[in-house]
């Protein structure tokens, strides 16, 4: 279970996160909505160690993630994708996945087996020896997702997974994300502007506004929340 308590992140005089608290229970999906600049990506960056939190506490299954470097946070079981996919372009798809398994102490055969499973899952298996730069933007998003899933994470942070993805790949992504909590046993934090997907996939939704939590609840409650309607939905 991920617990974030009173998380504050400032950049000089600007406060990006002003005391965010949230919980992501095991095997659940938390959708995170918010306008540009509301602090969604900053929060992900603090959770996975790219940014050091100014104050507050972040813990996964009771283990504090504060002060840990991104590679150490990954070792604790936190995988993360980016809004613009960050694949390794000059490496094959198999090598991209192998990077995430380097410190797992697995044999080459085990690495190949796990990688093949996830490449099949994201329908990229036939391209496994191609260079990642040869993939379309949507396929790169799928590869990035597979790259963290091979490591069997406890928590997956997805930053705008549907942005720039064509409808058929988006459907594939939605299917995979939906299955993740039960099939893989991980929790998911889904940051997206795609309201339909967030409403459909999330067990719980958090709406952020200017570094604060504006509202939290299930899809129905969020859609009826007057603060959310005023600040975010605008209708």
């Amino acid at each position, binding site marked *: 279970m991920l617990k974030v308590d009173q998380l504050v992140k400032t950049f000089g005089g600007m406060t990006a996160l002003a005391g965010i608290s949230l919980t992501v229970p095991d095997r659940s999906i938390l959708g995170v909505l918010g306008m540009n600049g509301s602090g969604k990506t900053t929060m992900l960056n603090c959770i996975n160690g790219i940014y050091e939190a100014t104050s507050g506490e972040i813990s996964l299954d009771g283990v504090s993630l504060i002060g840990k470097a*991104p590679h150490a946070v*990954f070792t604790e079981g936190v995988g993360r994708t980016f809004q613009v996919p960050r694949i390794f372009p000059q490496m094959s798809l198999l090598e991209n996945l192998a*990077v995430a398994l*380097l410190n797992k102490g697995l044999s080459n055969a085990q690495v190949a087996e796990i990688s093949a499973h996830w490449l099949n899952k994201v329908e990229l*298996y036939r391209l496994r*020896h191609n260079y990642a730069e040869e993939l379309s933007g949507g396929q790169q998003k799928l590869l990035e997702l597979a790259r963290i899933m091979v490591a069997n994470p406890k928590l997956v942070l997805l930053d705008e997974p549907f942005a720039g993805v064509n409808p058929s790949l988006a459907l594939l992504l939605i299917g995979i994300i939906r299955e993740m909590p039960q099939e893989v046993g991980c929790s998911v934090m889904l940051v997206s502007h795609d309201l339909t997907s967030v409403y459909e996939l999330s067990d719980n939704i958090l709406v952020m506004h200017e570094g604060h939590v504006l509202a939290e609840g299930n899809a129905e409650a969020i859609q009826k929340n007057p603060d959310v309607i005023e600040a975010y939905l605008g209708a």
Partner: protein
Amino acid sequence: MSDETRETRIEAQNPLSASQNNPEKTSHIKSLIWGGVVTLIILAFLPVPLFTTNLSFMFYMMLWLTMATSFNFVAGMAGYMPFGYVAFYGIGAYATGVLYKTFGLPIPIALAGAAAAGVAIGLLLAPTLRLKGVYFGIVSLALAMAMKLIISLMPAKITGGSLGLILSSANDPTMAYYAMFAVLLGALAAGTWLSMSRLGIALRAIRDDREAAEVVGVNVVRTRLKAWVMATMFPSLVGGVEAWYTNAIDLESSFNLLVTAKSIVYAMAGGLGFLVGPIVGASALYGIDQLIWRHFPTLNLLILGVVIIALMLLLPRGIVGAFAQRFSRFRRFIP
């Protein structure tokens, strides 16, 4: 129909596709090509002292092959650009000279000391491995300047002062030639191991996207440190062996920035990131350099500069990189 079944059918119809999708076969072809290149290198350099006493051309060819290959460890595999790479060459030269001349140690031990000195200075620079891109390059350049200054300020009875050190009593060009041959083979072996090992995968991930690599569990600083140690050892050995070969060490030639510049240019001209890139680049450009030198001694650097500019403009990814780009289906076979 599963992906595997569909793929088997495609492979049966297209042999190239079959080898592309068969990692063992691809790896085998790649190994064969690399094995062929290394065999050619051995055959080209090993018997030379049996046929001639003028070893200079081949000696310096090996020197630049080693410098470009080891430069590729950091620049091509880890994405660093150490502008002060000459620092290790100079440290190696002086460590060899001081250990031999001042402390009376035999040349092999002096060379081992040179490698150790290079690695030790490289480790001192380890905290700066956190720096990104050009900042690390600038720090390494400052190191080269600082090392030159420190050696110039050391007592003349140790470093020879402004006159430098003369190692005439160690004169043995043939043995020095074979020492350089051994260093070259060592660099090629290290490159082969790096490209095939898990460390190599981690390094290439860092080169492609440092932050993404860190986010999927790669300890960037520790990984870079391993490559850095290897990359500092070889120029130190090269500097030491060259000092033995020429029997002369002085500050200006040992810390000449042209050493870094040539290492960069030769490696880039061939293609950074490929094992064969520095081999092709150093062989071609050093050959051209010598031809120009022989026919236009006064215009040597000018003409070489024009050749390099043309190469960078026309083939920005280097000769091997351009081939890989043009014939992308063969790229996976290029070591």
